[in-house]
């Protein structure tokens, strides 16, 4: 579905991604794990069109991606950014409606709002609240729901477990699998390597802007290199 070939991204002089290549196959959950500063967010922002590559190729369903972020969403790729970034000045419902901005099917949007309230039942009590007043976990739910409202083919999640309590992290990963089961391909960036590898079908380990190893999630969990570098510290 998505193939990235020899992707290079720079911030001025800082070379953040050094020739990354990776594949995301339709229907799978793919994790990109790596320490803070490895380049996960840079990769996600580039895929979503907020950063432009200095070189390399990104093909989605066989064709190159448009340059502008809003057109990329139109192609079916939606990024749920790091730290949620909800519109604090809008209500929860308005945040979700923003997710459906490009859609014209009123009835479909209303039905999807209901689906989101079923997926995250706490959200139903919060629809009229300003998003800025929610707890971290609730904000992450709204952020994911806002992403889903665009009915993406590929959902990009940047650190969905960041700053969440352990129980909430479990719930979030469980939900990501549910979303995937409904047919959405997921590309997930995580520092929380153990749980991300455990739930992902395929995975890539990123280190200072390069792919260190790749394989199935289970394989990487067993990989001594990965165990030493990332799983030494018990989560």
């Amino acid at each position, binding site marked *: 579905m998505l193939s990235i070939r020899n992707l290079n991204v720079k911030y001025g002089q800082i070379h953040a991604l050094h020739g990354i290549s990776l594949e995301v196959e339709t229907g799978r959950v793919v994790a990109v794990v790596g320490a803070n500063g490895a380049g996960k967010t840079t990769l996600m922002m580039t895929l*979503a069109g907020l950063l432009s590559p200095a070189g390399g190729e990104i093909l989605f369903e066989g064709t190159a991606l448009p340059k502008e*972020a809003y057109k990329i*969403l139109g192609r079916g790729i939606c990024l749920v950014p790091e730290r949620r970034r909800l*519109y*604090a000045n809008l209500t929860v419902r308005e945040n979700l409606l*923003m997710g459906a901005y490009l859609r014209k099917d009123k009835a479909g949007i209303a039905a999807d709002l209901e689906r989101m309230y079923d997926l995250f039942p706490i959200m139903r009590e919060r629809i009229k609240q300003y998003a800025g007043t929610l707890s*971290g976990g609730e904000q992450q739910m709204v952020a994911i729901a806002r992403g889903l409202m665009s009915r993406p083919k590929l959902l990009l999640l940047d650190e969905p477990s960041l700053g969440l309590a352990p129980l909430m992290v479990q719930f979030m990963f469980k939900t990501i699998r549910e979303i995937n089961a409904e047919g959405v391909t997921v590309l997930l960036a995580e520092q929380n390597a153990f749980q991300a590898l455990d739930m992902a079908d395929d995975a890539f380990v990123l280190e200072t802007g390069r792919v260190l190893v790749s394989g199935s999630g289970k394989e990487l969990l067993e990989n001594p290199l990965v165990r030493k570098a990332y799983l030494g510290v018990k989560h």
Partner: protein
Amino acid sequence: MFTQTLLTGLAIGGIYALMAVGYSLVFSILNFSNFAYGSIIMLGAYIGYYAMVRMGMPIGLAIAVSIVGSGLLCWLNERLAYAPLRKRKASSLFFMISAMGTSIFLENLVYATIGARFYNFPELFAKSNLEFRGISIGVLDVFAMVFSFVAIYGLNLFLQKSRTGIAIRAASYDIEVCSLNGVNIAALIGLVFGLAGALAGISGMFLGMKYIVYPTMGWITNKAYIAAVIGGLGSLPGAVVGGVLLGVLETFVSAYVSSVVRDVFSFSLLVLLLMVMPTGLFGRFLEEKV
């Protein structure tokens, strides 16, 4: 006397509010004070004057022409002066400098082409009064008051309820995420400038009718700027409250103290308020919860 002063104050406050809302709209989305706005208002007044006096259009049509004309000019202002800066991700200081340059350019363009002389709208309409239980208020004031509040109410409805309105509020909080949600930001910003320009057309027209039309009449938007800052820059309810408050207070100062100290009063009020409430009455909610 009191009621009459209040009504006159509300009328001028309505115009201040319109201008302050125009300022705030742009500020809320691009985070800079668009000092070219005064010149757009001035051009709106000229457009209205030409439409009504030179071409003999009825007032309603002249206002419409002024709205459309100023809307287009304000949109063009963004395309030519700010869009290139936006592409380079320039800081708001550069936007402000560019805005001042635009303002100087437009004023001098008017001097060079139309000239420095003052133009008056026909007296008839401006000077006729409505009498009611000993209160006398200008027809123009009533008209300005009603029209300003209807325009602001309509804009508010649009921002609160429509899909595009929600997107404008979203962009005022996080423009990058807004583009992730599929919003064409360049088009949205163009629309915001067009809307601000439309408000400039209305206020320019009423200012021209109430006072006179001349190349530097845009200075009066200093008042709108004060009103917007009093209300909290970027906040639309703040702009409305700030504008009305300033208009009413000023009129009372003119009526009960002296019109000479009026402007001194406005600026003092601003300084005092900012000392007490640095973000204005309705300062923007910017807290990020992680």
